């Protein structure tokens, strides 16, 4: 890979993606294809263009990384970024969308958000002839949605969970953000998988993860449910649609000495990947996404569209399921901390 030196991080990433692809036969095609396709293409300039970037929040590793990557990419392509962050407050989110729409930018990129809250305003932007792009928001009002393949993330993570617990047992599920499309898809995929494992049961009522104080809240909710199911084996695993609840849940299991229970989540936050590396930690599976690549790709799609190119409805950025066995390979392949 010596010839890549000096070309920049993103080319290195692509090269390593292509190289790493050989280890995971199942994912090799997908990764190599993405890497090659992106490497050959010239990205059009954004000179003189104002790109509005509306983030739902930046308090989480995924959001913050994707948000910053978008801003950097707009600057790199010579455009002006109008970037705002609603700090996970829906009222703020709607005001910021209103204000952005009124400024008539050349494009608007929405990063996450509850669909029913953001969609009416994305429609309004579209009606105002502003090209709308999204990250992790599936809506007919956006031209292109850049996202991980959440169907695959959802089913792969569910299969890992089911296989780890031997296809039987009670699982605890955090389902607080069903209104957020990627979370809904992952949850539906979990249900679709366990439908064929009649001995796997979701403990009712499901838990509701919250923002803010996600870690503390997950810790106390799991501590409470462990007291309710004190026998070892009465709970086999804990699932959440992202990995900040997984962090709190894992800490609660360690604190209660119930490390026979395993935890699963999505996003590849550095703290959780660190737990996965620890052989004694109950963290057993995490779908590692590439937020930086997702943010960058969304902006490149904006540039391509403004240059008159056609875009696919969705752009999928590869994600890999990390478990205790493959954690080192996955972090190397995705170049994550």
């Amino acid at each position: 890979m010596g010839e890549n030196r000096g070309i920049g991080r993103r080319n290195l990433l692509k090269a390593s993606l292509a190289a790493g692809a050989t280890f995971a036969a199942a994912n090799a095609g997908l990764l190599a294809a993405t890497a090659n396709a992106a490497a050959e293409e010239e990205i059009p300039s954004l000179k003189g263009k104002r790109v509005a970037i509306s983030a739902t929040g930046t308090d989480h590793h995924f959001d913050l990384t994707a948000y910053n990557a978008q801003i950097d990419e707009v600057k790199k392509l010579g455009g002006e970024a109008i970037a705002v962050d609603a700090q996970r407050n829906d009222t703020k989110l709607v005001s910021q969308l209103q204000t952005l729409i009124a400024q008539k930018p050349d494009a608007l990129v929405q990063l996450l958000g509850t669909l029913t809250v953001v969609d009416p305003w994305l429609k309004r932007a579209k009606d105002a002839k502003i090209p709308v792009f999204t990250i992790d928001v599936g809506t007919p009002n956006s031209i292109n949605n850049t996202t991980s393949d959440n169907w695959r993330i959802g089913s792969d993570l569910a299969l890992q969970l089911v296989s780890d617990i031997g296809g039987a047992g009670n699982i605890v599920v955090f389902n607080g953000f069903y209104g957020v499309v990627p979370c809904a898809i992952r949850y539906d995929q979990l249900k679709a998988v366990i439908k064929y494992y009649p001995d796997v049961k979701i403990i009712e009522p499901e838990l509701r993860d919250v923002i803010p104080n996600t870690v503390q809240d997950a810790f106390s909710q799991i501590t409470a449910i462990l007291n309710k199911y004190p026998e070892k084996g009465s709970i086999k695993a804990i699932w959440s649609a992202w990995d900040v609840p997984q962090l709190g849940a894992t800490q609660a299991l360690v604190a209660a000495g119930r490390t026979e229970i395993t935890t699963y989540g999505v996003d590849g936050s550095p703290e959780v990947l660190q737990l996965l590396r620890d052989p004694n930690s109950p963290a057993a599976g995490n779908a590692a996404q590439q937020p930086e690549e997702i943010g960058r790709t969304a902006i490149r799609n904006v540039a391509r569209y403004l240059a008159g190119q056609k875009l696919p409805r969705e752009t999928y950025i590869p994600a890999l399921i990390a478990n205790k066995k493959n954690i080192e390979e996955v972090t190397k392949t995705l170049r994550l901390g």
Partner: protein
Amino acid sequence: MSSDIDTLPAYGSGGDTTKGIGRWLAGFALRGGSLLAFAAVLTFFSVSAPFFFTLGNIGNVLGQSAILGVLAIGLTIVIIGGGSNVVKGGIDLSLAANLGLSAAVYATLISAGYGDSVAIPGALATGVLIGIVNAIAVVVFGIVPLLATLAVMNVVAGLELVLTQNTVVSASTDFLSVLSSYGPFDIPVLAYVLVIFTVLAGAVVQFTPLGLRLYAVGEFPEAARAAGLPVRRIVAGSYIASGLCGGLAGILSVAYLSGSTTGAGEMLLPVVVTALLSVVFSRRLVPTIGGTLLSTLLVGFLTNGFQLLNISSTLVSGIQGVLILLVVAATSLQHGKGAV
């Protein structure tokens, strides 16, 4: 309500001349300063963000301020009726939670298949009921409003969690579409709602005998009682009016957010800030409805200006904090704590 007597010395004692002049100066600086500051904020943003001073943007800010404005007006009514002593005077901490529960009731009724004819009265009744509970706690049981409404706030927030399971409940009806649309001059309908509501509330509070009694009860409860005013009933009424504002704000919020969402509690601090700030926009340094509208807009313009300048909106909280300190400091000075 004998605790309100604590606010009396401010007006009751004569004080010596120097202190009197100091107080007058503090008051003058506060009044003039606040209007100057408002003008400076507008000028600054207009110059640095050309888009700021356009009809479309000002309309947006008015619309975005509607929910906060209605809540802050509710709180202002309570502060007028209960006296402005920050610790023992009138306060309604349950307003933000009230907004959350009323919105949740509205959205839940809509998603259960009921129409607006059920959901609107449902939301308003929820708000009024919360107001009645507050009124009973404060007037009948004589609990300090700060604590009474704090307890009610927790109960109400808990009920919202039970009702919505802490999830987003989406709702859409024709009425909601009208509320969240744009009216004449391409200004949001919510902006018109805020202006009309302020005018109505202002007319009642500032220009009717009822409003005058409300001020009398808040500022001089003993004198009001001696004059034969139904002090308890008027104070209770102020909490019920505030509850109604919470219910109304709930409906506006469902329109704004296309449903009820979590996190209504975060609204509490801005509401309290706005209502307290209203004092500096009145001639006699008392809370007024018009002053509340101005302070709502100040907060709205600050947030909006920062957004346009691409500056983190977290700074707005910092500025709000500084403003509160200034207001409380200046009003304490003006009320002449030294003279007690």
